[in-house]
């Protein structure tokens, strides 16, 4: 059976025009729409087979009920629990996660805190002039990728939405557009750019400042070379920006995670505001996981804040740097952790991992990963977007509903969390809180 309009649940592009062939309740083929990474996710493997609880150092398979009871027991007893991940699952699950965090007074945080968290902080400082990806597709005649390499990380981005896509005022595709890539090395994306600006590592802030100054007409204050870029090249970039009818900067973790962090993004946004005095100009973070934005959205409308929210006081306390997951772990404050649809084992600094090894850890995930190696309770989940449906937010805030294309016996994240929450409430009721 052929299923159309299938949505890829992998990266922030959330491509929604996939065509897949399903037979015997299995995805046999991805016929259209997906990039190679998206394809391999849909074809899926490496599942966690059964719920399991660690006993004497090794995981022993058990029933869902036992694993959920065990997880609830750990969370109900914890004084400073951390609930982390949330970016590769659906908003419906994120909502239950926040309710669980509220119930047990946990810190809840998503992967933004180690990728685009600085972008959020910058937005809180200066705002974000942006647009949907379809606006870029139809109007943009100048596309800038800065510290982002979509060819590898968001393979369909240029084709569906930006440089290569064809839209209303861009019917000729890339013939109608200019592509500028700014990066510290010549990435694959840089190779296809009209203009590649190679900057020195950690000099993004300076280069943004120089461009800002030029856009605002202060050519005299810009030296002959800034961050490894000649003034001539900067002037040429500014000329392209001013001449564009509609410009967009997409920035990636090359900017958020390099020296300057959120200050880089503030400056990038200020550059956009400066460009906006000449022409229409927008800017957008290249969000990584397919629903990293969705968690930030749900967390914001429910708690008032997008991530790193401490609910131990009963109301939301937000102070990234104090309340983000890595801070909590490095301070060895947290005494139990739940990881959902993420792999801190691979992404967190070593110091935090050492602390995690000492405290009870619960993992909810369809797939095994390095975190499984030290998790005390492992709960397998249905794969969102293949085995279960739900809402996600694309990198440009557009909500799209993931489709379910095959059946499964595994429970969706949402249901697992609801059961844990129910069990936690039962325990607390018994204890009279």
């Amino acid at each position, binding site marked *: 059976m052929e299923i*159309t*309009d299938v949505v890829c649940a992998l990266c922030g592009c959330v491509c*929604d*025009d996939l065509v897949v062939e399903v037979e015997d309740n299995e995805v046999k083929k991805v016929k259209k729409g997906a990039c190679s990474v998206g394809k391999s996710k849909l074809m899926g493997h490496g599942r966690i087979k059964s719920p399991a609880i660690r006993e004497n150092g090794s995981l022993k398979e058990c029933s869902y009920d036992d694993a959920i009871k065990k997880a609830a027991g750990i969370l109900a007893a914890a004084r400073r629990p951390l609930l982390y991940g949330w970016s590769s699952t659906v*908003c419906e699950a994120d*909502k239950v996660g926040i*309710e669980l965090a*509220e119930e047990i007074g946990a810190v809840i945080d998503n992967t933004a805190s180690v990728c685009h968290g600085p972008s*959020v902080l910058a*937005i*809180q*400082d*200066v*705002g*974000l*002039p*942006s*647009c*949907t*990806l*379809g*606006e870029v*597709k*139809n*109007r943009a005649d100048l596309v800038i990728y800065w510290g982002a390499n979509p060819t590898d990380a968001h393979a369909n981005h240029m084709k*569906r*939405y930006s440089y290569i896509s*064809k*839209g*209303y*005022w861009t019917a000729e595709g890339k013939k109608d557009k200019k592509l500028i890539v700014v990066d510290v090395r010549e990435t694959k994306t840089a190779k296809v750019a009209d203009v590649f600006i190679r900057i020195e590592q950690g000099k993004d802030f300076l280069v943004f400042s120089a461009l800002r100054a030029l856009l605002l007409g202060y050519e005299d204050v810009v030296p002959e070379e800034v961050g490894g870029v000649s003034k001539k090249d900067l002037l040429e970039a500014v000329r392209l920006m001013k001449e564009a*009818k*509609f410009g967009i900067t997409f920035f990636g973790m090359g900017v958020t995670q390099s020296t300057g962090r959120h200050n880089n993004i503030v400056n990038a946004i200020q550059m956009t*505001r400066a460009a*906006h005095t000449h*022409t*229409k100009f*927008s800017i957008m973070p290249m969000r990584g996981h397919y629903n990293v934005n969705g968690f*930030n*959205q*749900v967390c*914001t*409308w*429910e*708690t*008032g*804040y*997008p991530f790193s929210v401490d*609910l131990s*006081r*009963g*109301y*939301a306390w*937000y102070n990234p740097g104090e309340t983000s997951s890595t801070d909590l772990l490095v301070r060895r404050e947290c005494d139990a952790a739940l990881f959902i649809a993420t792999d801190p084992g691979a992404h967190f600094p070593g110091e935090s991992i050492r602390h995690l090894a000492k405290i009870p850890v619960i993992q909810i995930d369809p797939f095994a990963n390095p975190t499984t190696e030290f998790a005390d309770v492992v709960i397998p989940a249905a794969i969102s977007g293949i085995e279960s449906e739900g*809402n996600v937010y694309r990198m440009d*805030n*557009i*909500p*799209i*509903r993931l489709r379910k294309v095959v059946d499964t016996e595994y429970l969706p994240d949402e249901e697992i969390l609801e059961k844990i929450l129910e069990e936690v409430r039962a325990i607390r009721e018994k204890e009279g809180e």
Partner: protein
Amino acid sequence: MAEGELLIKNGVVYDPINGVNGEKKDICIRDGKVVEEVKNPKVIDAGGRVVMPGGVDIHSHIAGGKVNSGRLFRPEDGRRGLEAKTKVCRMQSGYSVPNTFATGYRYAKMGYTFVMEAAMPPLAARHTHEEIVDIPILDNAALPLIDNNWMTLDYVKSGDIDLLTAYIAWIIKATKGYGVKIVNPGGTEAWAWGKNCDLNDTVPYFDVTPAEIVKSLGEANEKFEMPHSIHVHTNMLGHPGNFGVTMATYDLVKGIKPSKDRQVLHATHTQFHSYGGTNWGDFESKADAIADYVNKNEHVTIDIGSIILGDTTTMTADGPMEYSLYQITGRKWTNHDVELETGSGITPFLYSGKSPVNTIQWAIGQELALLVKDPWKVALTTDHPNAGPFIGYPILISMLMSKKRREESAADMHSAIYDRAALPSIDREYDLYEIAIITRGMTAKALGLHEHGKGHLGVGADGDVAIYDMSPEERDAGKIQKAFLNTKYTIKGGEIVVKDGEVVATPAGKTYFVTPECDDTLTEEMLKKLKDKFEHYYSVTFNNYPVQDAYVPNPYEIKAPMRG
């Protein structure tokens, strides 16, 4: 809806839709609806207090993409409203951009039981609905933005009103929306190129004018028995001298016959559109001119969009307007243009009584309410959070009811109020009956919700009741304000949700949406064009676009047949 019976006795009832003006009257409720009599009820003794139907807000921004972007980029606003969870309530945050839970609780505490989310970008409609589900207690609906859509612009240009009709039917259904929202017609499309449009300018590349858009949508809306008229945010919002454009817009639809017994055009947050002068220096109130127009014509209703002094978060689909505001203040600014449909801008703003402009703006909203003679033509709003947060409604009620309070306030504000506004010279004071009209009777009628049990307490109406902790004789403005901020009781569908100013239950609200029933052949023909737009220009597919049923777990459908 609560099962069982409830009797509210000894209340002094203000139920304008049924002409009940301060009568001592019992209210009987069974299984969530108002009934003639009850047998074994739970009894609430209102003890001579003021009783009204649950409030109905006609225009407020409480859910969706821009509201959430407002929350996200203003953690400092979040901190202004932190409250810990209780046994009944979830955590709360925010003042001008409260979280979803606080939104439900705070409205309910003011005696409101229905709120219209006033701007839903169709492409992001799922977001609006996701948030609405998280707003407790309140019944709700949302107005999709339909005026800058390329489909609309194309049909306006070609003059195909029938196909435009088919399109608005489709998009209202696809978004589970309630009616036709218009925000800076043409101007928001122009903003995608960094430009704006006045009423008779040509929209870049589309060869239509805002005036043509308003007129065409006005005609198309009346092809159905829509509960609500077109709901219009006119061009040039916030510009000195815009009152002429505002009235010219009203005039565009004057000849159109409404398909139901209601206005043809609801003009929203009219305060922002009643400006005289040529610049901020000679800026003055033209509320008198606008009120005069409304007094002389029957086809227009307005809501006031009155200012609450202090810091707030402005947000609208009118992208260019937010950009100009940000240029004035230099504060943070978010913009989000939405492909083929609309846009939005957000920026914080401080309304200060020391500023001559803000002072005059503050006067204009109240002048509109006081100068429009028939309260059935005017609704109380702050265009939450644009002119101020909804939590300021009780302040406005006390102002409208007390000339003394207005005088005291004006004395503390910029003296421009005495030269360039009319407020100090107006003696009128609202009575409770009129307050009930502009906060529930008129709003329910203008939205067509009175036919669905909202805004009144006649037999068959929803058992939504507000009991305010004040006697009908109360004249002290401070006490009036306090009473309207926290009810003695709010009852929603027969269930007590607020008692003594505390939320005691949080049932889920219903989402009202309209299904315009369009002729199949027209729809087929329209779909050819629409599918082409999806094929080539949208970044999501046609099949993934409509809001799935899962997003509206508590639906209330209103069918709008084509006019015979």
